[in-house]
């Protein structure tokens, strides 16, 4: 039996999510034993031709060229897994979606005329069919191993999409929102990090994106009505690494348009 093949693709991103694979120090050689790492430029010069059994796609679509390239990736992939906040929600670079990209280009580059970019940074699923989304900025490497294990054994990966609070309480962490009055996105954020921030005494800033059925409005109301946050702060709270995720985007726009 031939080994299933794995390809790793990069679009606009910081490389952190794919680095998670190399950070599986204990499991890396086992992974390499279980799958044929056929295309992973960050780790290997060798590029084997597709099709690939599983493709991991990191990064968001921000250039006309990438918009074409993702179609090719899809065509060559059996199962396509979008990894990380960039690939699932447009990433931090989706902040451009809320303002004028030209302003940004002018601010950063002395000769902006050389820069070719799209107006928006968008998730992979906005362009092609995505079979599974792995959340996080960055993804959690243990979740990645679970997803790969499931896919290799022919199962549909199933990761919880409930709130960070669930893991926060399971871990016995003391709630930062209730004890310190800090605006915590945990109640509306997707689990996967084991409530990392609260366990370090800080409020969750939503790097895993919205949970299933998030009630962002109830949280935002509490923040502004009881915790003394200003509208501008609410906008910033929802606009970080998952600013482009629909639930977070809608909530920030509600504040921007003053209809709350």
């Amino acid at each position: 039996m031939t080994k299933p093949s794995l390809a790793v693709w990069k679009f606009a991103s910081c490389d952190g999510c794919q680095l998670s694979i190399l950070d599986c120090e204990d499991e890396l050689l086992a992974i390499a034993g279980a799958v044929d790492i056929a295309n992973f430029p960050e780790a290997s010069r060798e590029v084997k031709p597709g099709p690939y059994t599983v493709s991991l796609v990191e990064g968001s679509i921000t250039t006309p060229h990438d918009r074409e390239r993702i179609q090719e990736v899809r065509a060559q992939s059996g199962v396509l897994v979008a990894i990380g906040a960039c690939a699932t929600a447009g990433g931090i670079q989706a902040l451009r979606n809320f303002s004028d990209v030209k302003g940004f280009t002018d601010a950063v580059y002395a000769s902006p005329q050389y820069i070719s970019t799209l107006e928006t940074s968008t998730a992979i699923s906005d362009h092609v069919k995505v079979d599974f989304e792995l959340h996080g900025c960055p993804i959690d490497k243990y979740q990645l191993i679970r997803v790969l294990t499931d896919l290799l054994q022919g199962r549909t990966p199933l990761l919880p999409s409930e709130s960070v609070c669930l893991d926060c309480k399971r871990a016995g962490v003391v709630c930062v929102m209730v004890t310190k009055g800090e605006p915590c996105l945990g109640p509306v954020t997707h689990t996967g990090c084991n409530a990392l921030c609260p366990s370090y005494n800080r409020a969750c800033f939503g790097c895993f994106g919205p949970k299933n059925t998030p009630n962002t409005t109830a949280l935002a109301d509490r923040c502004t009505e009881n915790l003394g946050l200003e509208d501008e702060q609410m906008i910033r709270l929802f606009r970080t690494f998952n600013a482009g995720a629909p639930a977070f985007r809608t909530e920030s726009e509600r504040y921007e348009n003053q209809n709350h």
Partner: protein
Amino acid sequence: MQVYRFEADALNALIATLRERGYKVIAPTPMDGAVVLGEITDAGQLPRGYCDEQEKGVYRLKKTDRDAFFDFNVGPRSPKRYLFPTNHVLWRSRQENGRLEIYSESDDEKPFAFLGIRPCEMKAVAVQDRVLSKGPFADRIYSNRRQKALFIPVDCTRAGKTCFCTSMGGGPEATEGYHLALTEVIDENRHFFLARPGEENSVNLLECMQAVPATAEEIKQGRDLIEKTAACMGREVNTAGVAEMLAEYRDHPHWEEIGKRCMNCTNCTMVCPTCFCFEVEDHNDLTGQNTERTRQWDSCFNLSFTYQHGGSVRHTNKARYRQWLTHKFSAWHDQFGESGCVGCGRCITWCPVGIDVTEEIQMFQEKTS
């Protein structure tokens, strides 16, 4: 029954004795801005000189000018965390060429001695007993840990603003299941504990603290404190007819209103000392040969909780909140012959948006009367 008295300083001897007898001592201790249950090895780790201020969605730990050990109410953790661990391996299996072997995981946790837990928490243990060890099937891990555990609750001599144990019959005095129940008495001159040995023969625990029979005066001092506490509960529920009302009004528009405020974040169920729902999960290695099956706390607020092929039964916030409240205050009576709520107030304090069960019940009572 004989009531004893020992000096406050003797707590350390008690902790040492419990440890000598092989117990892990679980007691309140300050951590990250709250009094939580945790393993302690020394009385110095008790939250001496701390009190908590609780309101809906708010908890603040404060320093007091008193030297009391137990001057606070309940924190976010309860004995449930120990008797019914949050995450636990149920069994492991090995699969090779179609053959399957299943190895049950033994639970080699040391027995727990709960020191300084609250009467409502004692009551909550009794409520969980009915679910997890007294039904047609018993949970092995819970039942074994429960049987081996030792309980030394301390009566409440101060009521929290979110407490309503008197409404639910949970406190403020420990009445059942304990090995030794303590009342802390502190005034300008004295600082001592009253001790009531429970049904089980636990008088021998008193020796290490050099306890002596308490005087009538001392006993009265303790009694007064408890009575005063009972008289100033932070909250209240008129339980008459609540079970019937909630079962009757499953379609009431008020559910919709709560649904708008509830974030289905699961905090209330996680902190509730009686909530028992769990989830099981398999973890494989990359070869697929070795599997570990674990279970962890779950919550009826989760979308996946009612997932069946095709979708979740309770997909709206409103339905999930209704399930929770109705289960606690209504269905529990049918299922286990008592209420699922002991009035500890945790779900009120630890709800990040401050939803208050007592207020919601009252609201239903007003809207349906």
